[in-house]
C-alpha cells in the first residue's frame, strides 16, 4: 500500500474515569480510589475517504473513543491527531473552530439529538452561521434547500418541527446538519440502531452515496456486525477497552484471527444463512459475560472467556503482531496454537459468494 492520506490518527489513547467514593467515605470505609479503565492504549489511523468501524459489545469503550475524537472527552494519556493537529491541545473555543467545522457527529437517537422547539431550517442553519460560512439571507436559504435535497427531504420540510418526522427522516435531518459545515470527517455513533431495518437500509445507502460524492471519511461505531460488513473499509474490534484485532475489513470478516472476533462473528444471527431448529446449538458460543472495567482481568482481558487461554494469557498482556493486512493481539495467534477459522459448517455459501 502506498502512503495513504491519513485524516485521523489515534495514538496510544487511554481514557480512565475516576469512579471513587467521596473522600470522606473512602477514609471511613478505608477503601482506595476506583478507576474505570474505559479505553487502554488504543491505536488506529483512518485514511481520507474511507470508513473505519469500531465494533464490540456494550461497555467495551467504543463510544468513549468516539467522544474523545470529537473532543467531548479529554484523553488521560495518548493523543488524537486530526488533519495533523493534536485535538487535546486546543486552549480556547476559538482555536478549535476549524477543527469542529471539519469534524461532525451523528448520534444514535434522532429523537434526542434534535432540538424539538426549533424548525428544521434553523437546526441545519446553526452550524453554517456559527462557523461564519454564510450570513442569514437568500444564500443561506438556498444552502438549506440544497442540503435537504442532498439527504432526500423536500425544501418545505425546513419550516417543520422535528416531531413531524419519522425516525428515519429525523436521522436524515441529523445528517443534513452534520453536512452543513462541509466537514471532511463524520463520527457516526450507532447511526441506525434506533431505526427499523427497511429504514436502516435507506440511511446506510445515503451515507455511502455521500461518501462517494463528497469524499467523506467516517468513523462508524456499531454493535451490528452486518452493518459494519456493509460499510467499513477497515475494522477495529474492541474488548474491555482494548483493540484486540484491527485492519482490513474483508480479511477480518473472512479470516478473523482473535478468538473473540471469531466467536463474535459466529454468534451473530444471519437471516440470509438461517440455522433454525436442527443444526443450531452446534455453533460455538461465547460463554460468560464481559468483566467489569473497574477491575479488568490480568493479562489478556479476554482470557476468562477464551477457549484457547493458557497460563501465559493470564499473566501477560499480548503485544500486537501483524497478520497479512491486519494486526492482532493474542498469544495463541503468536504461538500458532489456534486452529484455522471455520465459518459455520452449514454456512459454506459464504466463501462461495465472496469469491
Amino acid at each position: 500500500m502506498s502512503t495513504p492520506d491519513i485524516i485521523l490518527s489515534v495514538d496510544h489513547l487511554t481514557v480512565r474515569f475516576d469512579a471513587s467514593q467521596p473522600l470522606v467515605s473512602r477514609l471511613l470505609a478505608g477503601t482506595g480510589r476506583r478507576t474505570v479503565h474505559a479505553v487502554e492504549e488504543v491505536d488506529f489511523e483512518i485514511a481520507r475517504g474511507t470508513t473505519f468501524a469500531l465494533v464490540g459489545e456494550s461497555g467495551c469503550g467504543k463510544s468513549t473513543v468516539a467522544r474523545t475524537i470529537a473532543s467531548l472527552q479529554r484523553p488521560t494519556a495518548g493523543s488524537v491527531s486530526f488533519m495533523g493537529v493534536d485535538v487535546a491541545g486546543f486552549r480556547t473555543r476559538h482555536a478549535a473552530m476549524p477543527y469542529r467545522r471539519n469534524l461532525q457527529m451523528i448520534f444514535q437517537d434522532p429523537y434526542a439529538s434534535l432540538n424539538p422547539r426549533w424548525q428544521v431550517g434553523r437546526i441545519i442553519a446553526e452550524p453554517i452561521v456559527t462557523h461564519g460560512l454564510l450570513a442569514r439571507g437568500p444564500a443561506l436559504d438556498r444552502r438549506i434547500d440544497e442540503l435537504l435535497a442532498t439527504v432526500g427531504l423536500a425544501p418545505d420540510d425546513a419550516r417543520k418541527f422535528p416531531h413531524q418526522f419519522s425516525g428515519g427522516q429525523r436521522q436524515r435531518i441529523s445528517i443534513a446538519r452534520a453536512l452543513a459545515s462541509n466537514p471532511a470527517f463524520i463520527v457516526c455513533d450507532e447511526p441506525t440502531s434506533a431505526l427499523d431495518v427497511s429504514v436502516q437500509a435507506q440511511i446506510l445507502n445515503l451515507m455511502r452515496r455521500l461518501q462517494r460524492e463528497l469524499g467523506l471519511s467516517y468513523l462508524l461505531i456499531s454493535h451490528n456486525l452486518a452493518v459494519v460488513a456493509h460499510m467499513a473499509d477497515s475494522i477495529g474490534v474492541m474488548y474491555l477497552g482494548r483493540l484486540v484485532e484491527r485492519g482490513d475489513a474483508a480479511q477480518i470478516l473472512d479470516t478473523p484471527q482473535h478468538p473473540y472476533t471469531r466467536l463474535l462473528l459466529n454468534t451473530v444471527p444471519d437471516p440470509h444463512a438461517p440455522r433454525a431448529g436442527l443444526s443450531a446449538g452446534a455453533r460455538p458460543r461465547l460463554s460468560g459475560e464481559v468483566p467489569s472495567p473497574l477491575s479488568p482481568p490480568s493479562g489478556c482481558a479476554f482470557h476468562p472467556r477464551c477457549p484457547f487461554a493458557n497460563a501465559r494469557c493470564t499473566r501477560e498482556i499480548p503485544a500486537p503482531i501483524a497478520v497479512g493486512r491486519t494486526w492482532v493481539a493474542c498469544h495463541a495467534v503468536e504461538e500458532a496454537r489456534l486452529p484455522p477459522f471455520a465459518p459455520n459448517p452449514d454456512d459454506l455459501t459464504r466463501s462461495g459468494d465472496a469469491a
Partner: protein
Amino acid sequence: MSALLEVQNLRVEIAARTRTLVAIDDVSFSIAAGEILGMVGESGAGKSVTGTAILGLLEHPAYLASGRILFAGARIDDLRGEKMRALRGRHIAAVFQDPLTSLDPLMTIGQQLVETMLTHLPQPHLQAVARAEQLLAEVGIPAPRERLDSYPHELSGGMRQRVVLALAFCCEPRLIIADEPTTALDVSIQAQVLDLLKRMCRERGTAVMLVTHDMGVIAETADRVAVMYAGRLVEIGPTAELLRAAVHPYSRGLMASIPTMRRRRDDDLLHIPGSMPRPDAPVAGCAFHPRCPQVMARCLTERPPLVAAGPARAACWLAEDFAPTSPEGRA
C-alpha cells in the same frame, strides 16, 4: 394440527380524542403446542399489541373491538379479572424486553419465584424454594442457592433475563409470549438467552410467540414466521421458506434490506422507499401499496385477503398468481 392458541379476526382499536384508530385489524393465526412462532414487523406494525391482547393486558384507550382468542379450545378474550389472572402466569406466561421492569426491585429473586409458584400452584413453601433453586440452575445461573437471596440490581442484564425466563417457566406454562426478549442484550448474551429459551421449550413442549423486529433472531429460533405490516398480517409461513423466498413484496423487501455478513460492498442495499403508514393516517386498499414496487390498480382500492401461496399464506393480490399453474406466471 391441534392448535394451542387460535386468534381469529382480531381487531384492536384505540379510542383517540376525536376518532377511533385501528391498531390491528383482521389478524388471524394459530400456534400449535410446542411450536415457536416468530412475529416480525417494524415498530408500530402491531406485533406487541397482538401479544398484549392475547395476554388480556390491553389498557385504556386500547380495547378489543372484535375477533376471538381461543386457548386450548376455550375462549379467553372474554375472561375478566381473576379468571384471566389465573390463566396468565399459570398457563400463559410473558417475557418482556427489559428484565428490570419485569422484576420487583424490592424482592429477592427467590421471593419472586416462590411467590409466583405459590400463587398458582399451592405447595409447601420449602418445596417451592427447592424448585426455585433448581430452576435457577436450569437457566444457567451460577451458585443458584446463593442467588436466591440476590436482588435484581445485583445481577447483570443477561443474568436478569435468565431469571425472567425462570419466572416464566416456573409454573410450567403451555404458551409463552416473549416480546423482544433479547433486544436489550449484547449479541453474545442474546445468543445464550435464545439457546436457553429454545432448549427449555423443546424439553417441555412449551409453545412460544416470539415478537421481534430482528429477522436474525427469527432465523435462529422460529419454526414459523408471521410478518405484520401496519396492523395487518401480510404473510405467515414456515421460517426456511419465508427467509428463502417470501411471497409478499413487503417480506421480500424486508429480507433484501437486511445487511448481510457476506460482503457485497459494491452494491447498495435494496431498500423500501418511504415509511409505514401510521394508524392516524390509514391507507386504503393494501396498506403497503404506496411503497410497493409491484403495485397494481386493484391494490389502491381493494384490500387483499390472506390466501394460500405455496407453503405460506400471504395477503397480496399477486399471491393469487403464485400457484405454478398460473397462466401469467410471475415474471
